[in-house]
């Protein structure tokens, strides 16, 4: 007889927004280091989005505690083999990277930009960590299904990448930057992330086998198959590849990917709620 941790919507939102924060940050940092001057909007939007979201994530996590006033108790302690312990620390470290990268993205000076690129390249490690550790946290528990899912961290990382990139394209679209070359590059990166995510999801289900039943055949199954697999991955990929001919606004795939990313966290967390 195992017991549910009673992790509900606050945690679902944290897993979703934390993935976007990590994904948006490393996308911006990669654009910063490997892109050109036309990617400036991608970089700024990515850094500021990750900064905003990480602050929100901290609030969500504190609110979820049984005794929120004791949130600093995790800061008096460190276990390098414990995903939640490293996660609590990395939340702060990531926030520091996001803050400095955001602030420096406002500066026009070349020396500042050089420093920002190096700083952000180091920061990508924290971005990748933030997007994936929540999966490793779940897969190292005593719960059935969670603890059987060896590639949960890899899956969360792929989803963090695709949703982070989708969030950047959505914000670019809303701020009228959708015509530029940067927008096309984010979409190209997101296309790769989505294809990768679909492959990792297939591997996830294959490795789980019958242990995936809570997702594939239980009461969450319609949400999983329709909401995540079809609406959240297959449709945006198809639209992305043939959308130009269909006259579908370029932002639609991004919105669908975000919906799919939320549903992924929802069905996985709620499978043991």
């Amino acid at each position, binding site marked *: *007889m*195992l*017991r*549910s*941790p*009673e*992790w509900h919507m606050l945690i679902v939102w944290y897993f979703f927004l934390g993935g976007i924060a990590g994904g948006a940050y*490393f*996308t911006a940092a*990669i*654009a*910063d280091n*490997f*892109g*050109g*001057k*036309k*990617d400036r909007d991608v970089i700024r939007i990515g850094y500021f989005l990750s900064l905003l979201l990480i602050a929100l994530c901290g609030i969500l996590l504190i609110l*979820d*505690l*049984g*005794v*929120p006033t*004791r949130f600093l*108790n*995790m800061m*008096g*302690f460190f*276990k390098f*083999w*414990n995903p*939640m*312990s490293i996660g609590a620390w990395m939340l702060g470290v990531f926030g520091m990277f996001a803050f400095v990268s955001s602030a420096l*993205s406002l500066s026009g000076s070349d020396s500042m*930009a050089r420093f920002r690129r190096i700083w952000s390249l180091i920061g*990508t490690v924290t971005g*990748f960590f933030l997007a*994936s550790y929540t*999966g490793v946290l779940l*897969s*190292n*528990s*005593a*719960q059935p299904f*969670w*603890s059987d899912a060896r*590639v949960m*961290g*890899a899956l*969360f*990382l*792929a989803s963090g*990448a695709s949703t982070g990139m989708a969030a950047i394209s959505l914000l670019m679209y809303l701020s009228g930057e959708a015509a530029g070359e940067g927008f096309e*590059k*984010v979409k190209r*990166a997101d296309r*790769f*992330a989505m294809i*990768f995510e679909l492959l*990792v999801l297939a591997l996830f289900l294959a490795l789980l086998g019958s242990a995936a039943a809570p997702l594939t055949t239980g009461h969450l199954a319609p949400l999983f198959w329709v909401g995540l697999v079809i609406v959240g991955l297959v449709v945006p990929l198809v639209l992305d590849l043939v959308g130009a001919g269909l006259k579908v606004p370029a932002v639609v795939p991004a919105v669908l990917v975000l919906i799919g990313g939320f549903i992924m966290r929802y069905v996985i967390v709620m499978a043991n709620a």
Partner: protein
Amino acid sequence: MARTLAMFTDTSLCIGCRACQVACKQWNELPLEQPEWTGSYQNHAHFTDKTYRLVRFIEKPKENGELAWLLMSDVCKHCAQAGCLEACPTGAIYRTEYGTVNINQDVCNGCRYCVTSCPFGVVAFNHDTGTANKCTFCNDRIHNNLGPACAKTCPTDSIQFGYRDELAAKAEKRVAKLKEMGHKDAQLYGADTNGPLGGLNAFFLLLDRPSTYNLPEKPLLPQRNVLADSLLSVGSALLVGVGAVMAFRERGGKGGGHA
């Protein structure tokens, strides 16, 4: 470290009187709860944040079709390799000098990672205090040379308290005797320090397979896959990262642009 203490619960001696369950409630000042219908004499169905000792009443069909009781007073196992302790990010869960596992109620902040990391589903979240609760091995009593309240009160010595090595030797003799008497499925659960989770400091003598008692046949440490899962995540990060670099790289040479 002091010599490891243990509780040995010999289910073959249990008469289902629930004195242990009551003694635990009394000593630890655990408040009243809504009772729970389980279809049997057992109440509650499982440990709660206010029930640390629980007598399980398991109905086992006999060959003639009648039902026989299997009685078992269940408790936190105080594992030598404890999933809850490894999961705790605040240090609230600690190992005492006697080898028992305890939750410091003044440090726990209610993240509930321990709740989901116990292979036996023992640790429970208390909505009144916002902290995780479980059997303390009567930490106050053992530090004053008193046994845990449950062991002290047990009228049949089904629950025994003492030094781990002595109790384990006693348990071995008892299981051999029960086998001689015809209880062919009699077995120890958690007595072996080389066994699963490095042995349980609250171990049991069962009259049937562990699964009959709703116990895992081979409990595993939840943290055993941290390294493998992390490396798979790193691999995933590398692939995603390369994809993004390819997408953003300026065509026809190095990206020398300034943002």
